[in-house]
């Protein structure tokens, strides 16, 4: 019985290890070489091992501020820039027109005291409706002012 055991042990020692396929070393070394080549490319290294690339301390802060800037750039005013200019131009034209009217010698007496009335006549608005027009102008002016102030406030906060 003991002899059987001895034979078995000798046999076990004689058994050769298993063998992988003949291209094993070649394939493995090719894979390692590819890995090494990838490592030598800094961009690919960053992509493959991005966790190992240290981030700057203010990364989050910089990123958030950039996001806020983008937000600011995307925000638009309630009243468009074009409308503002149209409104301003209309106001200027009306004011200049009212002065031109006062320089007319035939109308000088009447327009000296009633320049606003003359102006209203030119634009064909009755004095009763003038107060409505006046309130409209004031409202639009207030809106423009608020729009300007809000825009100014948010742009200074996010940048």
């Amino acid at each position, binding site marked *: 019985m003991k002899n059987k*055991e*001895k034979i078995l042990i000798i046999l076990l*020692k004689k*058994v050769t290890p*298993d063998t992988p396929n003949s291209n094993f070393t070649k394939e*493995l070394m090719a894979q390692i070489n590819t*890995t090494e080549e990838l490592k030598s490319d800094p961009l690919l290294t960053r992509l493959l091992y991005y966790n190992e690339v240290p981030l700057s301390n203010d990364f989050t802060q910089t990123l958030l501020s950039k996001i806020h800037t983008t937000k600011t750039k995307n925000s638009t005013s309630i009243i468009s820039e074009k409308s503002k200019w149209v409104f301003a131009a209309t106001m200027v034209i009306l004011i200049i027109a009212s002065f031109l009217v006062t320089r007319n010698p035939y109308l000088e007496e009447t327009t000296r005291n009633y320049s606003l009335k003359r102006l209203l006549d030119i634009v064909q608005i009755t004095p009763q409706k003038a107060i409505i027009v006046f309130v409209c102008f004031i409202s639009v002016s207030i809106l423009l002012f608020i729009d300007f102030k809000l825009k100014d406030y948010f742009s200074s906060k996010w940048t």
Partner: protein
Amino acid sequence: MSSTEDNFFIDRVCKGDIDAYTFLVNKYKRMAYTVALKIMRNVEDAEDATQESFIKAYQKIHYFKKDAKFSTWLYTIVYRTAVYNLRKNQISTTQIDEIITEEYSTEDNNVFTVAIENQLLLEKVTTAIHKLPRMESLLISLFYTNESSIEEISIITGLSKTNIKVKLYRARKKLKKLLDNPLTETLKKSI
């Protein structure tokens, strides 16, 4: 001597000489593959695990401490990779209870050396080893084929020394049963 040679090539690999790694691959690929095959029980999976282990070893070779044997370190990686891959493939592994038995002497005996020069018999032994449970098959390969010490096997597998001895004892017992007829015949021839 072998360890010094390994260390020479390891140093070269650490210095960036990839070709030096070929020497280490060629030297240890068979046993590394054997370890993986004993666990995976599938040629393709075993090769994948072996390849993966060699790449892992290459990537971590700077961490290898030269006071240990490179083979032990490598086989530990192979064993863990194979076990991990096996679990990933949801294949159950056998659990063996710990039993304390006496250490078995593996002294060689030249009396029977002539009788075992039979290739057919060796093939039968190889087949019998493959029939053993995964861990027992691996331990037999490491202990007898690779001649690793119990301590080295303990490092590789993470099993206690006592457990390794128990499993080796059980494995031999099973092999004796599986190879009863061929062993009897060999014994008759040798006497």
